[in-house]
């Protein structure tokens, strides 16, 4: 009955591919514009998933062609594209992080607050069915009062040196997801204590960055959020969570592609390796993230994270970096 929601996609790299396929797989959604400075990438994506390819991101900001925009281009482009979306009055789903520079984010804060369009940040992990179920059950009071949230995130291996050099460092690039996950459960964080480590990568050390970290967040009601990250894990993508309360605990373990177990001479109950990386582990979450964004665009009740959530994660990342460098606990007000 209703015309589909038309999407413009900006950036057709790793995550851009994921979003293009999510749009193509979602009923009531269609890809109508695809932009990438690397125009071959845009053309290939458009051929596969639909839409008109262009090298110019601004071509997407035309309400006669699109009803909503997804930004999957590199981080430094995010704020300008959000600003353009506000000007064009077109709802936007923008990848995380919002930016690497809090000053630039704060300069946009007022404009974003006044904007009448949905500005949604790509914190897809909130929509992972496993983590989301924990969240729902915590909200439902199943473990009583939430006292501790433990997040363990380890990437299988570091990204390329080129990527790391412009990534903004482990806190703004990697831990950013955990900061948001922490805030998903404990929105009001008051302080950050962090330690950065150089355990295995001289490349990362040479960049002045850490390859591992531990972060403690304190909530306004004295909740504890404990985050452990590493840029490598020999056994695959390690994504675990524990929510601990006075009435019990909820826990999410790593996933394997199948539930098959091997039993033999030397071992028992052996599973296959964990799902490789974010594309596999979080595939469902990207689809659900899109569905939630579409609800927001249609004016329905929606839990999509917004501009202020993007900003808050960056504030926490900056505080964690400061804490690692000074050895002090850093107070924050979000």
């Amino acid at each position, binding site marked *: *009955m*209703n*015309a589909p*929601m*038309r999407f413009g996609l900006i950036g057709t790299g790793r995550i851009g591919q994921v979003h293009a396929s999510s749009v193509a797989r979602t009923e009531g959604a269609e890809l109508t514009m695809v932009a990438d400075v690397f125009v071959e990438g845009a053309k290939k994506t458009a051929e596969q998933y639909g839409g008109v390819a262009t090298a110019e991101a601004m071509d997407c900001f035309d309400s006669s062609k699109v*009803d909503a925009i997804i930004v999957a281009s590199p981080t430094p482009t995010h704020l300008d594209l959000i600003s353009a979306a506000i000007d064009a*009055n077109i709802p936007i789903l923008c990848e995380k992080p919002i930016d690497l520079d809090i000053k630039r984010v704060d300069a946009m804060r007022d404009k974003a607050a006044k904007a*009448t369009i*949905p500005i949604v940040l790509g914190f897809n992990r909130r929509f992972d069915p496993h983590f989301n179920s924990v969240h729902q059950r915590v909200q439902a009071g199943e473990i009583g009062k939430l006292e501790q949230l433990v997040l363990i995130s380890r990437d299988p291996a570091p990204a390329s040196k080129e990527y790391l050099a412009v990534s903004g460092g482990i806190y703004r690039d990697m831990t950013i997801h955990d900061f948001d996950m922490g805030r998903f459960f404990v929105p009001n964080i008051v302080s950050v204590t962090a330690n950065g480590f150089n355990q295995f990568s001289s490349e990362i050390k040479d960049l002045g960055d850490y390859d591992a970290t531990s972060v403690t967040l304190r909530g306004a009601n004295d909740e504890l959020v404990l985050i452990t990250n590493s840029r490598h894990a020999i056994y695959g993508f390690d994504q675990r969570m524990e929510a601990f309360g006075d009435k019990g605990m909820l826990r999410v373990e790593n996933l394997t592609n199948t539930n098959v177990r091997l039993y033999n001479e030397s071992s028992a109950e052996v599973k296959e390796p964990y799902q490789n990386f974010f594309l596999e582990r979080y595939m469902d979450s990207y689809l659900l993230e899109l569905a939630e964004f579409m609800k*927001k*665009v*249609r*004016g*329905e*009740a929606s839990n999509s994270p917004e501009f202020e959530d993007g900003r808050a994660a960056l504030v926490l990342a900056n505080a964690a970096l400061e804490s690692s460098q000074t050895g002090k606990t850093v107070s924050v007000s979000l």
Partner: protein
Amino acid sequence: MSKVLNLKHDPAGRRRVPEKYTPISKTRVKKLLAQEWARFQSTTTNSATHNKRASKVLPLGVTSSFQHWNPYPISIVSAKGAYFKDVDGRKLLDLSMGFGAMMVGHLNKDVVKAVKKAMRSVGTLFVTPGPLATEAAERFQKRFDIDMLRFTNSGTESTMYAIRAARAATGKKAIIKIEGGYHGGYDPLQVSVKAPLEKIGSASAPKPYHPGAIEAGEVYVVSYNDTVRLEAIMKNHGKTIAAFMIEPIVENLSIILPDEGYLKAVRELCDKYKIALIFDEVKTGLTAGVAGAAIRVGVKPDLITLAKSIGGGLPLAAFGGKKEFMQPVVDGRMPHLGTYNGNPLVVAAAIAVDKIATPEALEKAEAINNATLDAIDKIIDEYALPAHTVGFGVKGAVIWSPTPVRNYRDFKATDFELAELSWLWGLNRGIITPPGLDEQWLVSFAHTQNDMNKLVRSFREFAKAIRG
């Protein structure tokens, strides 16, 4: 109370009242109103300046008093499709659409093409007959199932001439109108339009209210949806009453639906007392369905007045109906005159509108309207708002009352502060609905579901804000 809630309305309309609601804090509404008016003034400085200039030459700075609101209205530089551009450079989603006159969208390409063609190769005015006006008339004759019609330039002229035709045909003079009903500027129809409650007696026997500058003659007023009082008036004064003028669906008090069977009863009473039944379809017309409201509700009036939606935005209106009621124009008992009547430009536009206002086009717009009303109903439930929705055809409205509105008194009892805040909230967020608080939104041929989603999103934010 529960009886009113269960009261059935005509099935052609759509109304949904909430099962549960909680009141909204008055202090919160006042605070938000102050905040939103401040926001209005800080973002519309060019409109303020323009109104100052315009007020020196045009009373209130506007060309029709409807257009004015305090402290000043927004001034528009251009319109296209479903959008306005204002003098402050903002793009606004137009949901007012010329009170329904822009049903095909601003600068609709087919209308523009037809008018341009007429300007290039037909002419602007003959003051003699021509085939274009006849074709337009034939099309409307067929579409609205009427015997004869004449074109005029405005709704006001149409309602005035319709009343005169009824007088000539019945040989009587007085009229009955609905309390709170608006039918344009003709004197008898100005009675009891926005009458102050303290001057109009009880709802069951409303007293006519005559504003100062009006010379109305003999006019009776009756509440909409009230057949008991209507019959009493007809019984006592039927010998002098020529016509009963009514909007079949009242669209000048937001949207008020007829109770089930009301219009049929009205028809029977008019027949019984030999009173002409005039349906004012200036606002309903094509926005109520392919053949207007009369055919949609299945009641045939003696005369009908049309304007707005039939003209694609050009000043075209009409009145017409059954042969015996148009006969006075034929035999000269009621001459109908006008220099610009049915000029080539407006009838070219009317023909274009008739071509594009297909059942499919109207059904599509109505489906979007219904989906929008559904979405807003969900928000009303979610936030337990003391409000309900009403829709008819491609028009819809939120009414700030948890119970149905069936007449002027009910309408006056709705929450006007919330209505003002809701209107202003949208305005400050790029959505313009009509300023009178008594109007409704219109889903034109240019509006998409995604355009209407803006209204839904803004309404959700508004619900959140008033709940605090």
